[in-house]
């Protein structure tokens, strides 16, 4: 039977199926276990699973039902390359939704009917809450540890894992980023 989806559309179609599988698994895990239980490593694992799942569907499901044709050839490298592009695109979306300060400001604007004073913004999204959440996350990841210097305030210290992370950042910042970071 003649395939409905010829190259590279068949490969694009399979990659889109992988994206659908990935999104379903990712959102299910987020719902069941919470965002913090599905970090970057888990995302990569889910992607690998979704790509294998999509290829398995394409291989074993009746090809004619998928529009690929029963004897059509599907190029594995093209499928993997499309899946890589989807993954990279989704990573931008994921980190933006989860951590972007700019998107959070837009969210606060939406809640307040599109208009906010800077004082309202600070009340809704205070610098303290902005930093405290990130510091707690980095303590959990093992990049920071909490200590005390004798005063009542907890002091954050860098761990060896945090130092290793910064050692990777240093040569890149000088070469590729101009001006202050953050």
């Amino acid at each position, binding site marked *: 039977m003649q395939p409905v989806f010829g*190259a*590279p559309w068949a*490969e694009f179609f399979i990659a889109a199926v992988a994206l659908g599988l990935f999104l379903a698994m*990712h959102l299910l895990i*987020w*719902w069941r276990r*919470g965002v913090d239980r599905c970090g970057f490593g888990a995302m990569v694992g889910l992607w690998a699973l979704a790509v294998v799942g999509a290829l398995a569907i394409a*291989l074993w499901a009746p090809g004619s039902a*998928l529009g*690929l044709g*029963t*004897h*059509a*050839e*599907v*190029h*594995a*490298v*093209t499928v993997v*390359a499309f899946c*890589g592009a989807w993954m*990279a695109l989704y990573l931008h979306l994921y980190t933006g*939704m*989860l*951590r*972007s*300060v700019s*998107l*959070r*400001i*837009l*969210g*606060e*604007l*939406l809640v307040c009917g599109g*208009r*906010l*004073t*800077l004082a*309202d913004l600070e009340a809704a*999204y205070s*610098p303290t809450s*902005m*930093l405290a959440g*990130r510091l707690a996350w*980095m303590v959990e990841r093992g*990049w920071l540890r909490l200590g005390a*210097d004798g005063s009542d305030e*907890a*002091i*954050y*210290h*860098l761990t060896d894992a945090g130092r290793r992370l*910064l050692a990777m*950042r240093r040569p890149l*910042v000088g070469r*590729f*980023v101009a001006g*202050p970071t*953050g």
Partner: protein
Amino acid sequence: MTLVVDSPQLLAVGTALATLPVLLGTHAALRGRAGALVSAAVAHAVAWLVACRALADGLGVADWAAGGAFLLTLWLGWFQIVSVLGRGFSLQLLVEIETEPRSLPALIAGYAGGRGVDWMLEKRVRGLEHFRLAQRLAGGEGLQATARGLTLARVARIYKTMAGIGAGG
């Protein structure tokens, strides 16, 4: 249906990877200039096309698609790294603490070499203005979202609700 691995596709993908130094080199040379990332991506694409033409005759549509998709993957990956390096809030906190162990109030006051967290917020507001997602109210005491900004906020809210992220940020 059968799954095949063709060498022309591997060549297209491998050439995209081999020409990655063009992306990095162009970006480093144009560091700090407007459009540096886009220019670097264009230079990388040109180098990839030239290399593919020189190395192989008659690449098929699936081969070009494989190389093009991998090229896009490399760009998006690099843009993500650059974004974290240049705008990473958490990473900047680690830099501050490496200089000197600090408490939360000291970090708020001394963020980004003493500029403070207000500087970071101001930088984000400028970004929202640049992309016409919001504009300052008269007198600069507040912000007004544009129609485009509100649409983006609505899409983000749907995604965050579906994923149970909460407000995010």
